[in-house]
């Protein structure tokens, strides 16, 4: 049987089952089990695809190529590690009485539902279904953001809901326009005009004017979910107010998937327009987000909020890189997506523990982590160094490549890039430093922390920074070939 259906079916079924399980302890275990199984299935799928090349499911509903399969694997992997982390974490939350077992049920089933939506969005071949899945991703997470029912969390959830809903609606309009353009060319009677594979093969014939408009709507729509400035406003709120595992998957996965959708669209539009319009728009948004988020980092008081801004920053960088286009930049962007979601989810895990042991998310009340719980302190420091782009962590390599590509095609843009890096770095560490070092305040005590996911993630990022394993490089190169049409030198 095809692993693809496992990949999709497991989380779906898991979600349904978990909706029925009362005890949150058992639910946690099931959650981990299902996620692990999904991860395994996704690896199996990945191996298949790598072996046989792109794969179109018989009903043409699913299309797996090098580009999305590695995102599938990544998503499933992060989903697994986060599930592992979330079990003791949410346990602790329940003990602290922040959530009841009723809501834990919702949490677990929605967790799987979210994973399902993500995986569906990645694997589907139908732009419409892609949209549906993206919307579903919002709907599954929106209640989790307000899980704690604090006024802030409700507010955050509302903003998340409205802004993403409206945004995604724009995306639908864009999709309709795509469909419209396709039907103009491919005839009204056939019903496969919305399949990405079809659109991509006929991209050259699609009408540029329509696709330009469509791209604008899709950019604004999916861009909202990517968190591009000025459409980003929901992101820090949702990240900071939701439960930490949610922040981890939102930051590590949702943003990636939204960007994935955007890039798919870009591939179509480029095919039709033969101008760099899409690229330039993405570059503009990316750079703007990158710089603005870097500045925002300076004014944070909430630790999770701060790291969500750093997510915006890095998504901006990735969008920028995709916008540049060309093999090198695309390769860099793919790599950056990977290392960022690994690192960032690791950071959020650590941040979760930090917030628990300090009993607050306020930066000024978290002090001397290294003293209180060295594992957490060092973990946070290492993660932040990695995300700040210090070698030998992988983020450095991808940023290095992005700069390299920029230097080749847009030499003068390297200056704002470097400026942004420096500013963001300063913003991050001026807050991080007092949290990690110094003497901890009274009452800050250790918690039962599961640092395994962090270690695994950071180890992977380190590995990617020192040397990209051949199969992975091959993988990226295939994807690069797919997106940019050429191989990095």
């Amino acid at each position, binding site marked *: 049987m095809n692993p693809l259906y496992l990949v999709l079916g497991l989380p779906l079924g898991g979600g349904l089952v978990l909706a029925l399980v009362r005890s949150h302890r058992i639910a946690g275990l099931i959650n981990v089990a299902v996620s692990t199984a999904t991860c395994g299935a996704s690896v199996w799928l990945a191996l298949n695809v790598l072996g046989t090349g792109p794969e179109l499911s018989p009903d043409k509903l699913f299309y797996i190529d090098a580009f999305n399969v590695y995102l599938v694997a990544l998503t499933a992997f992060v989903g697994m590690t986060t599930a592992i982390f979330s079990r003791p974490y949410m346990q602790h939350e329940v003990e602290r009485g922040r959530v009841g077992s009723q809501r834990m049920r919702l949490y677990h089933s929605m967790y799987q539902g979210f994973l399902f939506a993500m995986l569906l969005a990645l694997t589907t071949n139908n732009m419409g279904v892609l*949209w*549906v899945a993206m919307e579903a991703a919002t709907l599954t997470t929106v209640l989790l953001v307000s899980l704690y029912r604090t006024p*802030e969390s409700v*507010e955050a959830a509302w903003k998340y809901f409205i802004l993403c809903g409206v945004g995604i*609606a724009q995306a639908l*309009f864009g999709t*309709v326009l795509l*469909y419209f353009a396709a039907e103009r060319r491919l005839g009204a009677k056939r019903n496969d005009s919305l399949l990405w594979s079809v659109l991509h093969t006929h991209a050259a014939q699609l009408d540029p004017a*329509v696709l330009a408009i469509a791209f604008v709507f899709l950019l604004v729509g999916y861009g909202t979910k990517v968190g591009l400035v000025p459409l980003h406003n929901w992101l820090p709120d949702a990240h*900071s107010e939701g439960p930490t595992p949610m922040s981890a998957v939102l930051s590590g996965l949702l943003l990636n998937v939204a960007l994935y959708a955007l890039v798919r669209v870009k591939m179509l539009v480029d095919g039709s327009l033969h101008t760099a319009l899409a690229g330039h728009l993405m570059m503009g948004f990316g750079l703007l987000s990158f710089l603005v988020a870097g500045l925002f980092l300076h004014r944070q008081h909430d630790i999770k909020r701060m790291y969500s801004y750093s997510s915006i920053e890095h998504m901006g960088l990735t969008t920028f890189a995709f916008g540049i286009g060309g093999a090198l930049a695309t390769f860099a962007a793919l790599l950056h997506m990977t290392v960022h979601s690994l690192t960032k989810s690791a950071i959020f895990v650590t941040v979760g523990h930090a917030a628990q042991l300090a009993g607050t998310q306020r930066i000024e009340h978290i002090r001397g982590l290294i003293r209180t719980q060295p594992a957490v302190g060092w973990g946070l420091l290492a993660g932040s160094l990695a995300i700040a782009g210090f070698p030998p962590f992988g983020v450095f390599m991808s940023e290095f490549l992005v700069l390299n590509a920029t230097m080749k095609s847009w030499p003068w843009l390297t200056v704002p890039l470097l400026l942004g890096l420096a500013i963001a770095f300063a913003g991050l560490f001026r807050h991080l430093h007092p949290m990690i070092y110094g003497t901890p305040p009274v009452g800050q005590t250790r918690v039962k922390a599961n640092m395994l996911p962090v270690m695994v993630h950071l180890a992977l990022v380190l590995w990617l920074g020192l040397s990209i394993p051949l199969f992975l490089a091959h993988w990226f190169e295939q994807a690069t070939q797919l997106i940019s049409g050429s191989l990095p030198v």
Partner: protein
Amino acid sequence: MNLQPVTMHLTDLSLFSQGILVSAALVLFTSFVMLAQARIQPLIYTFAWQGVLLSVTTALVALVSGHTHLYISALLTFVLKALLIPWMLYRLVQRLHIQQDVEIVSHPSLTLLGGAVLVVFCYYVALPVAQLSTLVTRNTIAVSMAIVLLGMLLMITRRTAVAQVIGFMSIENGLFFAAVASTYGMPMIVELGIAFDVLVAAVLFGVFFFQIRTSIDSLDVDRLNRLSEREE
């Protein structure tokens, strides 16, 4: 624009096609009404009417183009947009005791003017698209785009959560209208997916009304401003 625009006169259209255009105009009109409507309950009614018109349009398009699956989506729309969601909103408003609320729309006339400008803008934007459409309903893209943007305008100008939700839903209507009028509807699976999402969204909105109500004991979204980056 390599190909010549197909010249069209209203007169050489079939009656049904004319009907489509009329209902399109009406849908647009309802959006304007909503923009002007300050009371909650009438707002809901207007929204319901928009749903009705939408389903009528869909049915007409089905009739003209002979796409049978459009009848289903017409039905779906009617049930969902004209009955179910308005009813849910109504019930909520009842239970939240805000049916009599009147909110102060700042510069209502200005807003309507802006709406009109939007329509022009949309026409201007959609011109190249419309020119290569051979459909009878070629300018409907401009109309639907206008509906979408008017919905956003509604959300921007209104402070109560309910009004925002209605704005949101009217955006969905606009989308649906675009899908139907410009492309004879999306593939069925997508239609169903969208419908499902909209339904869930509506339910969730209901949940949120209560959550917001309990957290800030009002539905004024302007009071949801704890989370910001301004000076503390």
